[in-house]
């Protein structure tokens, strides 16, 4: 995982994440101020016009941006669900969209014009190829609109297209829980838990949790939300078994539990 582009380019602390957003917003705001200054210099505006101009052209704050980005990220989810795309491709579309607006401001690129491009590139990146024409037929905007920012999107993604989502870890833990709690878990119950957690993962990836925690940690946090007793029991048994061989690569149970609880409260 540490070799993955997801870890190398897209893992941040909360502080770093905030800093990035402030920086992206500032770059866009500075550009706007500069453009307005140029505009003022080219026109001879009355004082009243100047006052109106200053009052009306306030750049968005970081939080305004975040509201817009989250609003349109939800649209990406709804549209890609409407297109009947597989769960992981919906997740990749959302991830591409959110990352684009970590690197760019909504004041530079209208989020509406990235919605379909992110879904289209996600389909290509996940080998779920839909030609742009058939995509445009299903998804409304014309092919030029879809392709217009494909390059810019790829560049903003730092060319990292392989994303590890929490879904496969969910399947993995579904199996390993059966192994560690062998004979002590009801399989039907596990199946229902699995389905509920899958839905919760799709909601969770709309938040910043994907930048702050690894996919398995997100999965364990969501499992913990679903059934704290089961997961605590599972982790206790799993790590107590390992505790005999105290060596450097054994993950410390208490550290992991702290991380999972942090992640859990963040998601909640």
């Amino acid at each position: 995982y540490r070799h993955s582009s997801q870890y190398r380019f897209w893992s941040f602390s909360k502080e770093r994440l905030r800093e990035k957003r402030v920086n992206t917003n500032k770059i866009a705001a500075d550009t706007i101020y500069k453009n307005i200054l140029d505009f003022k210099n080219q026109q001879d505006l009355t004082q009243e016009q100047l006052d109106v101009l200053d009052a009306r052209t306030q750049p968005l704050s970081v939080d305004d941006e975040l509201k817009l980005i989250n609003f349109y990220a939800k649209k990406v989810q709804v549209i890609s669900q409407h297109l009947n795309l597989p769960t992981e491709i919906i997740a990749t579309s959302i991830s591409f969209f959110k990352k684009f607006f970590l690197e760019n401001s909504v004041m530079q690129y209208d989020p509406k014009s990235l919605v379909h491009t992110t879904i289209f590139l996600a389909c290509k990146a996940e080998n779920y190829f839909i030609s742009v024409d058939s995509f445009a037929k299903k998804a409304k905007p014309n092919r030029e609109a879809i392709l217009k920012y494909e390059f810019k999107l790829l560049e903003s993604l730092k060319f990292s297209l392989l994303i590890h989502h929490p879904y496969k870890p969910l399947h993995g833990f579904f199996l390993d829980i059966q192994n560690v709690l062998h004979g002590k878990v009801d399989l039907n119950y596990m199946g229902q838990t699995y389905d509920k957690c899958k839905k919760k993962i799709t909601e969770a990836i709309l938040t910043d949790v994907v930048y702050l925690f690894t996919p398995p940690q997100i999965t364990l946090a969501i499992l913990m939300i679903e059934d704290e007793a089961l997961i605590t029991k599972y982790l206790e048994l799993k790590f107590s078994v390992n505790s005999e061989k105290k060596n450097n690569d054994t993950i410390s149970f208490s550290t992991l539990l702290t991380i999972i609880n942090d992640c859990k409260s963040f998601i909640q």
Partner: protein
Amino acid sequence: NTIPRFKLDEKLYSDPFIKDLENRKEFVASGFRTDYVYERVLTEAFM
């Protein structure tokens, strides 16, 4: 380093979805292997 970082024991897993695939003709003929599926999702979980 080919030593696996975790134990994979197929007998312990009851995964109706995968079990069903394992018996389908086109999966058997293609060389489909449940241990590869389990290894994949367990690796992603323990990564």
